[in-house]
């Protein structure tokens, strides 16, 4: 594949800080011409920051950027693009209402002598360009009438046709059909053979092994590993991403959980989700939670954990599947009914999906239980105060007063406010999506202890966490997801960090009927996984 030794694009000891966090901490990364280089890492690892440094969106605070052997500093994304670094984002950013041809040649349309766009030539050029990528379509049609895969191809063709030396792809396959993925891989291989460097960001391990030559793993803003893809064991790759050296996985201690995993929660499940399916997102996911039980959802980023939680709440459109709470099916797609039935979701993105920033702590707490605290539509101040005071005390929320704006609180206290919001509706099942992310150590321990306490009081808890230690120590049972499907269910003594990583690594969706498994009860996964 003709990879020379001189990197075409290189970051040396790059550091990037944001207020309160170091997004990149002395990261070095180099991509050679004619190689496909995988860039992987969990949430907050620094992948997107690194990409944005390469593409001129951010300026690094330290270190240097080298492109084609020279030190560079891109002031704007346009500058980076002009010098030959093209980026294809997860979501296609083209102009949906304009024709395919206009999109392809936007900004460099062929013009006639009068300086007017030469439509005939434009269409011909566009058609030829697309045909090169195996896409045959009427280039006069507006872009949005094309399928997602074809749109992605247009974006790719556009990115490459601007004489790119480096193409960065950020999760290009997240909305593609298997057939389209194959076409994309074909194009990527051709790029490689033409000596173009490809940086490939994806969470789908199978794809990495299929198409990438080398891999760089980032973790918490630092370089965790860089090396050839071939020969890198899956389990090792996962442990690099999740930051757990296999031999030093501790058994317990650092978290505040005190669950004994042998406690066999018996009785009927309080919440049962059956065969949740949503195109591109979830495939036949079944989860059940019994009262007093903490069920963990494990898996890498993009495995469908948050989506499963949203689907249970009715906030994710489903193609099929049913959710039962206390034995009764919920109406699909209605969060109101789900909440009334006793399902609560603490969302992953506190800022965008959780708090109402301009409202007070008090109003944020009672938001979901307003109707219960009102008589004839008029909110009872006395009852609200009672509930708010009780939760501020119980959860030890630190605010100057209940009337303080919630946006002025620390992350940990905001999280507690949201927990209070959900506890105030007296739920039967609590879905917790990354309940301790981005909060300080003290608050983290408090939240963990609280989860324990709530489960002991008989609440069913579904816990999503990227912190393996938290997941293993906090859960009674763990369901491991991969690419939107359940691949394993761990219980009893298998609820360990090691167990989770092994299941993520060894259940390959491509391997047809599931082979040997350490812990199995993955009845519903095999038929769904003929995909790919």
């Amino acid at each position: 594949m003709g990879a020379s030794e001189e990197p075409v694009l290189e970051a040396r000891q790059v550091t990037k800080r944001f207020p309160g966090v170091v997004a990149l901490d002395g990261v070095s990364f180099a991509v050679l011409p004619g190689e496909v280089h995988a860039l992987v890492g969990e949430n907050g690892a620094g992948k997107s920051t690194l990409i944005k440094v390469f593409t001129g969106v951010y300026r690094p605070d330290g270190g240097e950027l080298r492109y084609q052997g020279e030190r560079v500093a891109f002031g704007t994304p346009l500058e980076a693009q002009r010098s030959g670094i093209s980026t294809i984002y997860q979501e296609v950013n083209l102009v949906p209402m304009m024709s395919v041809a206009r999109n392809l040649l936007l900004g460099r349309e062929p013009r006639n002598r009068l300086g007017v766009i030469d439509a005939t030539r434009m269409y011909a050029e566009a058609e030829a360009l697309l045909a090169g990528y195996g896409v045959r379509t009427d280039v006069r049609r507006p872009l949005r009438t094309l399928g997602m895969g074809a749109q992605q191809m247009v974006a790719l063709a556009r990115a490459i046709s601007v004489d790119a030396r480096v193409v960065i792809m950020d999760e290009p396959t997240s909305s593609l059909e298997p057939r389209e993925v194959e076409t994309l891989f074909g194009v990527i291989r051709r790029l490689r053979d033409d000596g173009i460097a490809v940086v490939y960001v994806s969470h789908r391990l199978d794809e990495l092994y299929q198409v990438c030559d080398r891999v760089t793993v980032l973790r918490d803003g630092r370089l965790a590993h860089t090396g050839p893809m071939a020969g890198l064991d899956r389990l090792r790759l996962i442990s690099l991403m999740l930051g757990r050296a296999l031999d030093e996985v501790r058994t317990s201690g650092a978290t505040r959980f005190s669950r004994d995993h042998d406690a066999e929660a018996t009785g009927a499940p309080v919440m049962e989700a059956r065969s949740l399916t949503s195109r591109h997102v979830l495939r036949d996911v079944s989860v059940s939670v019994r009262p007093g039980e903490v069920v963990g959802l494990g898996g890498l980023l993009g495995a469908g954990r948050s989506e499963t939680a949203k689907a249970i709440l009715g906030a994710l459109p489903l193609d099929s599947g049913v959710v039962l709470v206390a034995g009764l099916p919920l109406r699909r797609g209605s969060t109101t009914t789900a909440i009334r039935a006793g399902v609560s979701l603490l969302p992953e993105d506190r800022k965008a999906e959780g708090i109402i920033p301009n409202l007070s702590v008090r109003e944020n707490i009672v938001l979901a239980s307003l109707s219960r605290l009102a008589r004839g539509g008029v909110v009872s101040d006395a009852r609200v105060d009672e509930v708010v005071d009780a939760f501020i005390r119980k959860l030890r929320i630190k605010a100057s007063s209940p009337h303080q704006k919630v946006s002025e609180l620390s992350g940990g206290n905001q999280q507690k406010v949201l927990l209070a919001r959900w506890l105030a509706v007296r739920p039967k099942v609590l879905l917790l999506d990354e309940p301790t992310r981005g909060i300080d150590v003290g608050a983290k321990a408090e939240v963990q202890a609280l989860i324990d306490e709530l489960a002991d009081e008989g609440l069913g808890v579904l816990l999503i966490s990227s912190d393996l230690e938290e997941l293993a120590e906090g859960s009674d049972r763990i369901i491991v997801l991969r690419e939107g499907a359940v691949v394993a269910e761990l219980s009893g003594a298998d609820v360990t960090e090691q167990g989770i990583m092994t299941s993520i690594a060894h259940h390959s969706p491509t391997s047809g009927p599931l082979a040997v498994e350490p812990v199995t009860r993955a009845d519903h996964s095999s038929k769904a996984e003929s995909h790919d």
Partner: protein
Amino acid sequence: MTDTTTAAPATRVDRTRLFAWLQEYGVYAAVLTLLVLNVLFTPRFLDVANFRTQLVQVTPIVIVSLGMALVIGTQGIDLSVGSVMALSAAMVVLYLGYGVLPALIVALVAGAAVGAAGGSLVAYVGVQPIVATLALLVGVRGLANVLVPQLMEFRNPDLIALGSSSVAGVPIIVVIAAALTLLMAFLVRRTTFGRQVVAIGGNRTASELSGLPVKRVLMTVYMISGALAALAGVLATARLQASDPTSLGLFIELSAITAVVVGGTPLAGGRIRVLSTVMGALLMQLLSATLIKHNLPQSWTQMVQAVIILTAVYVTRERGPR
């Protein structure tokens, strides 16, 4: 990742506090200042008749802007209010034969129906509020003109009385506007519905995930705005003693938006200031009255109003990014 306190923290904090104060009490201060200046420099300003005229003139704007504040609180806007006034003016004279009350009810229902149309476009179809209500602005005015093609006078003594009589020296329509203001303040502050409206404007995704009936609330907000505009239309008609769908309520949406903005309600939603909105309407009215009394041309008023609007928006914006 918001770094607002970058350079010169000391002056920055002072400015932030000043702006916060201005956003909170600026309208009240401005109204008070204008009143004092008028008392000192405008002859016969303290005349009761003068006060009455000013209040009666501003009443339709106040009533319309109450609904507008609610809509703006949800990050929306309602451009159809002027046309709804025209429609209700047409409706009320057409049904006046059945008595004032039935005619009034028909007019209010018509206004709420227009609001429901706009609200359902916004909430269920997902049309942007400005587009949905712009369509209604055009279409409903047309409908009103079809119903009553030209100025139509009426002689119903009850309706005339509604527009011109007073209770204890205060015109009935002013009393109605005041009562509605209090009712709206109560609705926003104390009811489930009001808190839901504010929450939806503050963070729609979070509200949806919290199980709030987001679509129903949005729909209701536009219906309330429509009904209030219809009431303003009936009251204005009663005062005119004639139904004039061709010109009644023209451009009132702009006055109402001005009142809301000057009152310090951010267009980004999530906050509704009812009393300040009324103050905003009063401020604009008082301003133009003052300038007219001092024989300054209308064009001056417009330019001063522009300055006030920009100031209000600037002050609100400064508090925006948190």
